[in-house]
Every structure is written in structure tokens, then in C-alpha cells.
């Protein structure tokens, strides 16, 4: 167990270093994004640009630049090229919105995903199964930003169907009721695709597991169908769902809900990333990527541990 954790931690750190290096290389290899000219502004003289280039260290070899950037990142003094704001602080400012969005949406999509999957597996082949399958496939196929724009227009921007407030994030500590009210639409929009996908996966898993010998034994013992489903079938069928959920949830927490955050103007980490990318601003992109990747890496390890706990046949390796 200890060996497992040590090995995984070393692996995780290596992956994070590789991720940052990879992002760095993207922005070094691609020409045209000279940060010195961006910092200097429009009316800068060549001498100004040259000074900035020297002061910020853009004339150094790229591995020195990479090392300096990582050093600043570690000490929390990384500063944006365009707005000169501290990147770590900006990410911290975006985290409440991103966390509120992800946790709420995660609860919704896990609950309804399991519900949809179980209902359609129990009624496999019947009309309700087919109807749910079609709905789930439509849910998976909706472009999330388009769904966001359309729901925002029809349900939040005036007109008689406008039941919800329009966009923006209200901090939980300011006004819990408004926080909840403002997040209903973003939660729903973010969750729809996941519900469809999880429902489909779980349906297949439940049907596969139902054919196992031990389930037949449970039936033969005369256990009630409800108990077989809860204690015997779901216990095994939910394991792959947990892997999926761990990774998806980590990605959303790490700023992966860029589209939802942008469409509903929540000012989360994802939206910050999108804005920085449009400005071609390397430090924030670096910060957000590292932030997002560390969530994914940590959750991958957590999922592996949970896996071993849920299915004792599997040992963490």
C-alpha cells in the first residue's frame, strides 16, 4: 500500500512536469506570440521591447525560461504578461464559482445517470428503455454551449418563460438562495451530456452483471428483485461508473467546464483559461493547465484506491 502510494506520487509529479513542459513547448515552438511586444504595448520603441525582453528573460535559452517560470509558479509569484495580475490569485478567485458549478452538477449527473441507467436496464427491450435510450443519445449529442445559449435565451432572458436569473455567479456566502437560483441552469446544462453517457454505460454494465452466475444464485435463493439489484448487481456495475465519474469530475473541477462557464459568464477558472488563451497569455494558461492536470492526476490515484476498496479482487498495482 505504501509502495503503491509512493510510486503513484512520483508518477504523478512526473506527469505534471511533462504537462507543463508540453504547454511551454507549444508556446515556444509557435511563432508570432512574442510576449515582449505584447507587454510593451502599441507605441513602444524597439529599445523598449528590447529592455522588456531582457528584464523578463525572454532572451534566455528556453530551458532557463521554463525553469524560471516553474520557480515563479512554485512560489506563487507568477504574473500574467498582458494584465500583470498574479495568476495564482486569479485562479483562487475563480475557484468558488468553478467548485460550486462542478459539485452541484456532479451530484445531479451522478444521481440521474444512475437512475436513468437502472431504469432502462430493468426495462430492457421495452418501450421505456427505447425512449430513454433515444433521450440519452440526444443528451450526449447536444453541443453544450449551444444548449447553454438556447436555455439562457428561452429561460432567463425575458419573455414569459423566463423563470431563472440570467448568468453571473453569486457567492454562496453573500446569498445562498440566490447562489442556488443562479446556478440551476448551468448545473442542468453541464449535467445533461453526462447523464446520457452514464445512463448508457450503466445500462450495459447492469445487463452484463445480471447474467453472472452469482446473480442467478441470488435469484434462486429467492431474494427479492429489489435487493438483488441494490446489493448484488449495482455493487459491481457501479465500479466502472466510479472511474468515469472520478475523471470527469476532476476535469470539471480543474476548469474543464470552459464552455458552460463562458456561456453563463460565471467567471470561473475555465473562463479565465479561455480568456488567457484568446490573449495568448502564457503564464495563466500554464497555471490553469497545471491546476487542472493536478486534479486529474490526484483523482486518478483516488479512483484506483477506491476501486480496490469496492472490489476486493482488485489490488492496487
Amino acid at each position, binding site marked *: 500500500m505504501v509502495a503503491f502510494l509512493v510510486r503513484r506520487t512520483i508518477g504523478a509529479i512526473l*506527469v*505534471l512536469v*511533462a*504537462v507543463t513542459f*508540453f*504547454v511551454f513547448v*507549444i*508556446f515556444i*515552438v*509557435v*511563432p*508570432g*506570440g512574442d510576449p515582449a511586444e505584447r507587454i510593451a504595448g502599441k507605441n513602444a520603441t524597439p529599445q523598449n521591447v528590447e529592455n522588456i525582453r531582457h528584464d523578463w528573460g525572454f532572451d534566455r535559452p528556453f530551458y532557463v525560461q521554463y525553469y524560471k517560470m516553474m520557480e515563479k509558479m512554485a512560489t506563487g509569484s507568477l504574473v500574467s504578461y498582458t494584465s500583470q495580475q498574479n495568476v495564482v490569485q486569479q485562479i483562487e478567485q475563480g475557484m468558488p464559482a468553478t467548485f460550486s458549478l462542478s459539485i452541484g452538477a456532479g451530484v445531479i449527473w451522478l444521481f440521474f445517470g444512475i437512475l436513468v441507467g437502472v431504469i432502462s436496464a430493468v426495462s*430492457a*427491450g421495452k418501450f421505456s428503455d427505447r425512449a430513454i435510450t*433515444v433521450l440519452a*443519445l*440526444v443528451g*450526449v*449529442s*447536444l*453541443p*453544450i*454551449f*449551444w444548449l447553454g*445559449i*438556447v436555455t439562457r*435565451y428561452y429561460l432567463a*432572458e*425575458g419573455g414569459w418563460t423566463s423563470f431563472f436569473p440570467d448568468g453571473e455567479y453569486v457567492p454562496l456566502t453573500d446569498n445562498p438562495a440566490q447562489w442556488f437560483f443562479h446556478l440551476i441552469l448551468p448545473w442542468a446544462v453541464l449535467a445533461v451530456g453526462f447523464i446520457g453517457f452514464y445512463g448508457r454505460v450503466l445500462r*450495459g454494465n447492469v*445487463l*452484463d452483471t*445480471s*447474467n*453472472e452466475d452469482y446473480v442467478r444464485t441470488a435469484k434462486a435463493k429467492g431474494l427479492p428483485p429489489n435487493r438483488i439489484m441494490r446489493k448484488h448487481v449495482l455493487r459491481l456495475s457501479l465500479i466502472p461508473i466510479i472511474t468515469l465519474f472520478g*475523471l470527469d469530475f476532476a*476535469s470539471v473541477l*480543474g*476548469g*474543464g467546464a*470552459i*464552455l458552460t462557464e*463562458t456561456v453563463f459568464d460565471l467567471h470561473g477558472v*475555465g473562463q479565465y*483559461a*479561455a480568456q488567457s*488563451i*484568446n490573449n*495568448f497569455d502564457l503564464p495563466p*494558461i500554464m497555471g*490553469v*493547465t497545471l491546476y*487542472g*492536470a493536478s486534479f*486529474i*492526476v490526484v483523482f*486518478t490515484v483516488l479512483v484506483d484506491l477506491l476501486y480496490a476498496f469496492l472490489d476486493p479482487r482488485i489490488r492496487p498495482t
Partner: protein
Amino acid sequence: MAQQATEGEFTLDTAAVLAAGEPPSAIQGRSPWYLAWRRMRRNYVAFFFLGLFILICVACLLAPVYAKHVAGTGPNNGHPLEQIRVNGVLETVLSPGGYLDKHGKQCPSAFTDPSCHLVSSIPIAPTWFGAGGRFVLGADANGRDVAVRLLYGGRTSLFIGIVSSLICTFFAVILALLAAYYGGWGDFAITRFFDLMYAFPVILLGIALGSALAINGFHHWGINVQSGSIWIPTLVISYVLVAYVGRPLRGQVLSLRQKEFIEASIAQGASPFRVMFIELLPNIMSSVLVFFTLIIATNILLESSLSFLGAGVQPPTASWGTQIADGQDLIVTRPWLSLAPGIMIVLTVVALNVFGDGLRDALDPRAKVRVQR
């Protein structure tokens, strides 16, 4: 998991393959592909959606015909000041904006006349064939025909979806075969590469690469891609998703690699190339086919997301994603500008998903345990 069927036993698989009243000889000695086809052909829903997808493809391929003979304009031609007759009423494509007085005339001076209001210019509403095929779905903010752009945008989106799916599946198959066949350091390097790609949120990596390349294009290693080219989103999308196809395929090849027929073929002196592409590849071909179909759907969605964020297809080229982004500002007055491309994306992606699902049910041997009776 699924029980191994012994010879001559009647399994659920046989039941799914044989129609009522058919003799068992109908499936004896047939190839797996034929059996899959027998399972597939009764799935009318899947074929209906395949038909829908082909219909959308044909409609988009015929975009130049529509543009020339029905709409009479190109995808990038704006007609902001043109006046057209809609059901006998003369209308301007882009209503005049700026400071207007009560009669809709331009105010000579906005500040002296109190009846002047600032009015934004609004494109023409959908004419629904009231104008002889012109501006069927209205015009966008630049006075371009939305219906024409919708079809041309479909060409772009479908091209990116299909081509990036081809490239992505091709490289994923090669990497999976190399990793699983050779094992050792090669496998280690390739799986670490997959791990690295998994550690990025897909969209974040997509927009980072897409917007980085959108500025000056890509000019390295003998590859020259210009900055507004639709090859940039195509390559970015195929690159971003390689790991998501490659990792499951590698797992499959890895288990096949242990089988006796591979050992036998190596013992007979087959070259690595032969083992990989003649022995192993046909055995994962059904998964590859399913992945290919479903990845097209994912790629079309990803393309639209990237284009919406400005990191995919660059203006003025039309694509469904850029059209939604363009129409976003006018959603209150002209909702069809963003509704129409969105509906096209949903139809295309649903069609591909349902068909891919049917394909998987038919090709996946485990499909026998899917439906319980």
C-alpha cells in the same frame, strides 16, 4: 464474465442471429462479418439514422448547387444594402441602423432632435421561400445568406469531423499495435504519452493548440499549414483524441497478443509487420470501425466547441460552430441564426451516435448478453 458457449449449444447469440423459423445451417460456417451484418440488418432504427446522416452529407455536398441556382449568392458574399421582395413587400437585407427618427429616416443630427433613437441594424428574418429561395433562413449580421452558409458550414464541419476521425483512428491503431506487439520500452513510452494526454482537459488542450496555431499557422518538420486553414482544427482535434482511442485499443491488442494464433504465426517466422497488420489488425477491426463512427460524432462536437471559442475554424470560413458564435449576439431578435446550425449539429451527431451504437451491438460479440428476454 459471459459464459463460453460450447459447440452445438444454443446460446443467446445464436438466438440473436437466427430469425424465427430459419434452420441453423443459415449461419453455420459464416464469417463474423456476415453474422454481424445479419444482426445489423434487422436494426431499422440504425439504418434510418444512417440514411439521415447520408442525407445531411449529400445536402452539404450539394451546397454549391443550392448557392448558385436557388439562393444566387456565395457563402461569404454579403448583401447588406440589397433590397429584396418578400411576399411582395420590399425589404432591405440589413435594416438601417444608427440614429433614426419616427419615420425610420436617418437623423441629420442625433443630439438636436429629441425624437431620434439609436437603433441597431437588424438582418432580415427567415423568408421561408417567400423570396424565391433567397434568404430562406434570413441573413446574418453581415448580410450573408444563412441557409447557404449553413450548407457550406456543414461541408467544413463534416470534413473536419470525418478527416480528423480518420487521422486519429489511423495513428491510434498504429500506436496501439506497436505498443502491444513490442512491449518493453516502446510500450512504456507510448502508454506514458497516453497518460500525458489524459492529464489534460480535452477542451483546454484543444483551444490552447488551436489558438496558438491560428495566429501564424504551422511551419515545422516539412509540414506547412497556413493560418486560416481548416487543416489546423482537423489536425488539432485528431491529435487531442489519439490517446482516447489508442488506450482501449492497446488493451485489446495486448490480450490478443497472448493468444496461441499469434504465437503460432511468430513460430512460423512471420515478420512483425505481418503479425501486426495481417494477424492482429483484422481482430480489432470491429472495434476500430465502431470507434471511427463514434469519434466522428465527438469530433463534430469538438470542432463546434473550438470554433465557438474562436480556436477552431477561422472567419470568414463558415462552420456550424462559428455560425452559432456569430448568431449569439442576435439571439433575441433573430434566434434562427444560432438555432439552425445547432439543430444541424444535433441531427448529425445523433444520427452518428445511434448508428454507431447499432454497429457496436452488431459487431461486439458480447452483444449477446445485452438484451435479456
